[in-house]
């Protein structure tokens, strides 16, 4: 099992979710984050001064999936979240050692 963690634009969550649903991946956990990378941030103006707000709103989508569909899933996410403009985000893959379903207490594999 692997964990796919994607950082995407806030208005891309629906599209990523739909793309994963097509692969029958429905489990996911989503977090509001702010991120910084190539994208420069925006200029905030406050009381006669300009500020660089360098952390911009993004959404993080974490989905733990079986090893066999990791590649497919990544492809789907990248396609769904891409606009081609700077700030589209990243996908990271982490190893997962174990996974349990709390409702049943069962270990999954």
């Amino acid at each position, binding site marked *: 099992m692997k964990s796919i963690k994607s950082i995407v*634009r*806030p*208005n*891309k*969550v*629906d599209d990523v*979710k739909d793309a994963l649903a097509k692969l029958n991946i429905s489990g996911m956990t*989503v977090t*509001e984050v702010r991120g910084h990378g190539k994208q420069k941030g925006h200029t905030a103006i406050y009381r006669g001064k300009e500020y660089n707000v360098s952390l911009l*709103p993004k*959404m993080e989508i974490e989905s733990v999936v079986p090893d066999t569909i990791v590649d497919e899933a990544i492809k789907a996410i990248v396609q769904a979240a891409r606009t081609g403009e700077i700030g589209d985000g990243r996908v990271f893959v982490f190893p997962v050692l174990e996974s349990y379903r709390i409702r049943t207490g069962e270990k999954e594999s």
Partner: protein
Amino acid sequence: MNQADTAWMLIATALVLLMTPALAFFYGGLVRSKNALNTMMMSYISLGFVGVLWALLGYSLAFTEGNNWIGSLANAWLNGVGLEPKGTIPHVLFMAFQATFCIITAALISGAIVERMRFSAYVTFISLWSLAVYAPIAHWVWGGGWLADMGALDFAGGTVVHVNAGVAALVAAFVLGKRQEYPSSSLLPHNVPFVLLGAGLLWFGWFGFNAGSALAANGIAGLAFVTTMLAPAATLVVWSFLDLFRSGKPTAVGAATAIVVGLVAITPAAGFVSPMSAIILGGLAAFPSYIAMQIRAKTSLDDSLDVVAAHGVGGATGALLTGVFAEKSLNGIADGLLFGNPGQLATQAIAVAAAIVYSGVVSFILLKLIGAVIPLRASESDEGAGLDITQHGEEAYLHVGSTSSRAEVM
């Protein structure tokens, strides 16, 4: 008809109407975010159901001549309530002013049962309660009933509004039972600025409530205005020191509560006592409510937002102190204990006791009757998920991207 009085009562009525949305914020900020809308709706819905019922029936029951206990149906369906003067203002306006009192009194009760009561049961309860409990007690005190005859003083509703709502709240909290997680987890407020907003708007609106109860733009209105400004100021000062002595930290929720307690306490006294007496009354009123809150916190009674301590105890304190500080030289009506008339204090006590007994008993009966038809409480899992989603299909706050939601196929 007096135009200046009309001008003042127009705005005073608007001010009292604003108190119900203000209460929605005071209460709404104190609950957890998953119940914020449900709590606010409990106030807003009163503007609809109780407002309409008051026009159709409640006003007539409370304010027409009838017997010592209840008015007649002479003005039901607003029959005979038109532009003719009632006192010095249009009759319709007098009816509207009184409507706003009934609306907020019903909404006050909700603080005791938030985060667990089924919405439909709540709406049914306050609708019936406004007719079966509020209207009669209003009649006793303001509609020419037996407490009026006895000479009970209640300038703007210490007994009719606050003791009454406080007792109904106590009964409702008792009948409903406590929230699942109470008191093991602390159920902290989700938005204290909203609580402060509510308190600020309540104070603003309360000037209409108290100074409007003079029903005229005269010296007594001025007096009631000033006491309504000074009493809560004094309560706020004393409460801050109580907080400071107890825990070293004056809290914002405490400040908001202190303002409300001071406002409640001055309500029955507003046009009867001097401004200096109002300062003393406001300062004194901090103690019983503060202590009641400490005691309640040690019990398992889940009066969630302390309606009993603030309105029940605060209202009773104010009603009794009215019997202490009233000055005939100001109001031309009656002196209190300090001015040589100890009997007034006894009269006040009787009025408070009557409201406690009647409101307690009838509220209990109403809840049991309703509970026999619809469950009073939301289901356990609905309570866990929060009443906003489960009773209203909404969440109070959603951030961009934080939820994925598609229109359902229709």
